[in-house]
């Protein structure tokens, strides 16, 4: 498959000054065309005001096999959640 275009991950910022969110991926020959393809594939219904693309191979990710050591230790540490404070009623919804 050496003639395949590389894979790009696409991040779009919505209308309201939110952070860029991962929306999907696509193929393109270079970064410039990846942005154009992202515009055509992912913003047809007025979804965005800004696009980031990054070639998928440049993303480092955790491995599913490391799930135990990476994430399980935090399961037993409920005291890290700020749920032990009495909130006065006057504060309202936080």
């Amino acid at each position: 498959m050496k003639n395949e275009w590389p894979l790009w991950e696409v991040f779009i910022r919505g209308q309201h000054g939110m952070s860029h969110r991962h929306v999907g991926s696509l193929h393109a020959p270079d970064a410039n065309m990846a942005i154009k393809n992202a515009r055509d594939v992912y913003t047809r219904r007025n979804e965005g005001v800004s696009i980031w693309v990054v070639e998928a191979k440049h993303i480092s990710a955790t491995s599913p096999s490391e799930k135990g050591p990476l994430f399980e230790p935090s399961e037993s540490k409920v005291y890290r959640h700020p749920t032990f404070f009495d909130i006065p009623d006057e504060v309202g919804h936080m």
Partner: protein
Amino acid sequence: MAEVDQKALLQFLLRMGDNTLVLGHRVSEWCGHAPVLEEDIALANTALDLIGQTQLWLGYAAEVQGEGKDADALAFLRDAWDFRNVLLVELPNGDFGRTMMRQFLFDAWQSIMLGLLQKSNDKTVREIAAKASKEVAYHVERSSETVVGLGDGTEESHRRMQEALDYLYPYVGEMFLSDDIDTAMIDAGIAPDPAALRSEFDSLVGRVMAEATLTLPDGRFAHKGGRSGYMHTEHLGHLLTSMQWLQRAYPGAAW
């Protein structure tokens, strides 16, 4: 400019609207057939932009015509001899490369034309041009980059793009021809002289072809007859059969 010749204005609007209608339909033929998903959606977006522009041009044309018709009636109930699009846009798609070459040649012309139409004396023409020019600015960027990518690509893509250019170039000249209708539009300050667009077109196309390592044909011979309605190619009738069949078979069908 109190007395604008309404018949000439109607012809001018049909020329603008039929160009985008016929090319929009041609490009839509790729839907579901493009070489990759990304290009498929991009082509469909372009087709939809062109059909949207058609609604504006033909909508205004129907108003000027004053026979109680609308854009749909003009699009779906006229026959080939009443169409006023240039021959370039009715030519069959060919391969993906030829489609993109045709797109670029039209986009290049349209982007210059819409720029000038934004200075028109006619308010509606100005507004349509302003709206369409944003879409077309993207079209020409995308099609020019694709022409460069394929022209300066592999041996095969280069060969196909050169063949596409050689095939399509004789259809370019028609976009710059003038007749009495153009003279009426120039006198009324509604539209520019088509011939006046040629030098900017040549410099844009020349720049892109050089970057694409493609050679522009020397000859300036131009097939014509589309924008005057004198004689379309055989391809337009076939296109209309497919585009108009539903309204022809079920008159007034709506959804």
